[in-house]
C-alpha cells in the first residue's frame, strides 16, 4: 500500500528536522547565554566551584564533543536538573504534560465538532441570515482575548450561577485518579471512578471552552472559505449534473476536499496550544506546561526552560507528521508525490 510507504518517507524526513531542532536548542543552551555553569552555581560561588561545575557539565570540551554528549543526554531523556524543583526536568515535564495534553485535546475536539459543521453551514447558506449570525459569533471569538473570556466565564458560571467549579483540575476533596496516562478524564474512566470523572469533567469544561473559542472562530472561517472554494469546483458541478443529493455533494464530495487546509490549522493550533495556553492555564490554575513555563521564567530556571523548549519542538514536529499523514489519507494525490 502506498500509504505506508508515504508514512515511512514522512518519518524519514523527520530526521534532518530533529537534528536541526537539537542544533538550535544546543546553541541556545550552550553557546548563547554566556555561561550555563555560572547560572547553576550562582553569582557568589567561587572560581573553583565554577571550574568544577564546568568540568562536570563538560563545558571545557570542544563544541562538537559537547554537542555529541548533549545528544546522548537527550536520547536518554536527560534534560538536566531543574534549578527550582531540584528534580530532573524530564520528571517535571512528564508531570505537567498530561494536564496540558488533556486540556488541548478536549479544546480542539470541541473546536472541530463545532467549527466544521458551522463552516459548512455558512458556505452552503452563503450570505443568508445564518451565515451572518455564525460569522458574527466567529468574529466575537477572534476579537476577544482569552483572558477576558476566562474571567467572564468564571464570573458567570462559578461566582454567580455556581453551576461549575472554580479553578483547578479536580475538586479538593476528591483523590486524583492514579492511572497510566496522567489525564484525569481518561484515568478516572479506566478506574471506573465516576465521581472523579464528573469532577474532572466539570473542571475542564470552562478552560477547554475558553481555549477553544479563538480557534473555533478561526477554524469556522477556514472551513467556510475552503468549502466555498471547493463548491465552485467543476467536479461539484458534475456531481450536481449527475443528480446526487445536496447532502452527498456537500459532505462526500465537498467536505473531504475542504478538510485538507483545515487539518493544517488544527495541527498548528495543537502545537501552539499545548505549551502556549499560558493565559488560560494561569486563570484556571491549570497545572500544565504553560504555567510551568511561566513559573520557570519567573525563577530563571534555565534547564527547565530549555527542556520545555525541546519538548514543544518535538511535539510540533510530531504534530506536523500527523498532519502530513492526515493529508495523505484525505488527498490521494499527495501520497503520490
Amino acid at each position, binding site marked *: 500500500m502506498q500509504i505506508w510507504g508515504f508514512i515511512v518517507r514522512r518519518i524519514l524526513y523527520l530526521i534532518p528536522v530533529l537534528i536541526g531542532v537539537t542544533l538550535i536548542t544546543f546553541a541556545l543552551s550552550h553557546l548563547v547565554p554566556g555561561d550555563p555553569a555560572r547560572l547553576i552555581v550562582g553569582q557568589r560561588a567561587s572560581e573553583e566551584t565554577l571550574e568544577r561545575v564546568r568540568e562536570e557539565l563538560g563545558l571545557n570540551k570542544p563544541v562538537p564533543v559537547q554537542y555529541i554528549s548533549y545528544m546522548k543526554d537527550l536520547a536518554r531523556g536527560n534534560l538536566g536538573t531543574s534549578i527550582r524543583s531540584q528534580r530532573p526536568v524530564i520528571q517535571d515535564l512528564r508531570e505537567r504534560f498530561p494536564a496540558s495534553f488533556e486540556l488541548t485535546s478536549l479544546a480542539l475536539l470541541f473546536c472541530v465538532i463545532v467549527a466544521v459543521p458551522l463552516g459548512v453551514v455558512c458556505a452552503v447558506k452563503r450570505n443568508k441570515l445564518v451565515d451572518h449570525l455564525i460569522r458574527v459569533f466567529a468574529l466575537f471569538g477572534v476579537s476577544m482575548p482569552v483572558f477576558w473570556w476566562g474571567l467572564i466565564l468564571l464570573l458567570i458560571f462559578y461566582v454567580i450561577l455556581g453551576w461549575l467549579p472554580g479553578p483547578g483540575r479536580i475538586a479538593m476533596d476528591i483523590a486524583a485518579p492514579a492511572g497510566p496516562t496522567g489525564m484525569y478524564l481518561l484515568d478516572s474512566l479506566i478506574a471506573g471512578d465516576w465521581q472523579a470523572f464528573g469532577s474532572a469533567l466539570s473542571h475542564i469544561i470552562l478552560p477547554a471552552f475558553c481555549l477553544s473559542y479563538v480557534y473555533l472562530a478561526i477554524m469556522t472561517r477556514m472551513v467556510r472559505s475552503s468549502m466555498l472554494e471547493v463548491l465552485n469546483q467543476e*467536479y461539484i*458541478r*458534475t456531481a*450536481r*449534473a449527475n*443528480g*446526487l443529493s445536496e447532502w452527498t455533494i456537500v459532505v462526500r464530495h465537498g467536505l473531504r476536499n475542504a478538510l485538507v487546509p483545515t487539518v493544517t490549522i488544527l495541527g498548528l493550533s495543537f502545537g501552539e496550544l499545548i505549551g502556549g495556553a499560558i493565559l488560560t492555564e494561569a486563570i484556571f490554575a491549570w497545572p500544565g506546561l504553560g504555567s510551568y513555563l511561566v513559573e520557570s521564567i519567573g525563577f530563571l530556571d534555565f534547564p527547565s526552560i530549555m527542556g520545555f523548549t525541546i519538548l514543544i519542538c518535538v511535539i510540533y514536529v510530531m504534530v506536523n507528521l500527523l498532519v502530513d499523514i492526515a493529508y495523505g489519507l*484525505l*488527498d*490521494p494525490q499527495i501520497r503520490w508525490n
Partner: protein
Amino acid sequence: MNAANLLEIHGLHLYFDTYLGTVRAVEGLDLTVSRGETVGLVGESGCGKSVSALAILGLISQPPGRIAGGKILFKGEDLLKKSPAELRNIRGKYISMIFQEPMSSLNPVYRVGDQMVEVIMLHRRVSRGEARKIALEMLHEVQMPDPEAVMQKYPFEMSGGMLQRVMIAMELSGKPDLLLADEPTTALDVTVQAQILRLMKNLVKKMNASVLLITHDLGVVAQTCDRVAVMYAGQVVEVAPTEELFTDPRHPYTRGLMGCFPDPNRQDAELAAIEGTVPDLINPPGGCRFHPRCPRAGDICGKEGPGPVAISDDHVVHCFFARQASDDHSEGGTGKGVAVLG
C-alpha cells in the same frame, strides 16, 4: 409540442445580475432536439451555449442567474417548473451532461470506479456489485483498455482523453434520453479528439440517445450532427440540417463562419474571424444583435429584431434578408476581425 421532439426550448431568457448590470446572456432562445437526433450548437465564445445547456438541467445558480422567461419542455413537461427533487431525479438519469475539462470534472480524492459506482447505484437502483459490473461494461463500451485497472485509478493518474472516456461511460451508464455534451473534445489532443467523438457517436446511436453537442469546431459539426443551430449573442440565428447549413447558409453570421470554413470535409478550421467585436451583453445592440457587425445590415436591422424566416421545413433563419439567398459566401469572412469561436 411535437411528439417526436424530446426537448423543446421556447423563448428562453436567461440573465445574470452582476454589479456591472444585468448580463442578458440568453435572450429568446428556441431550440428543439428530437429523439435519436444529434443537434450541434455553435457560436463564438460567450454567446451563451454553456449556460443554455446548464439551464436545461437547472444548474444555473440563482443568484446571480435568473430565468426571465421561456419554457424548457422535456418529454412535454416544463423543466423550469420542476421541484429540486424532481430535477435531481432527471439529472444523470434522463438527461446527463459531459463537460469540457475532463481533468477537473471528476473528484480528485475518489477512485474513478467508485465515482462511477456511486452514480450507477443512484440511477439504476442496483447493488454495489451489480453497479461495478455495469461500470466495467460501460468502460468496455468506451473501449477503455484494462477497465479493471481503470476502476482503481484516481483521476490525476489518467490522461484527459482517458478521463473523457470515463465521463462518457459514466454519463451514459444511466441510459439517458438526452446527452448534453459541452465541448467534449476541446480540451483534448487533436489526435484524441476524433477518436472520442467517433466513440461517443457510435455509443449514442447504439443507445438511441439524443445529443445536444456544443462545439466551436465546424469540423466536429460536419462529422457528427444531424442538425445545427448557430447561436449569436444569446440567440439562435439559424437552424438547418447540417448538410444544408454548409451548402446554403443564409444568415450573414453563419456565412461569416463559413467564410473561413467553406468545405465541410475539411476538419482543421478552428478559427473564424468576423469583423467587429462580440457585443456587450449588458447593453446589447437593439434590433438584430448582429447588425453592428453585419456586412449586410440595413436601416431596419438596428430597429427591430428579425423574426424567424422559414427557408424550408427545417431551415429557419432570423434575418430580414434571409430570402435573398446570395451565392457570395465570402462576404462576411474577411479574416480581419478578432472574433474567435469557442
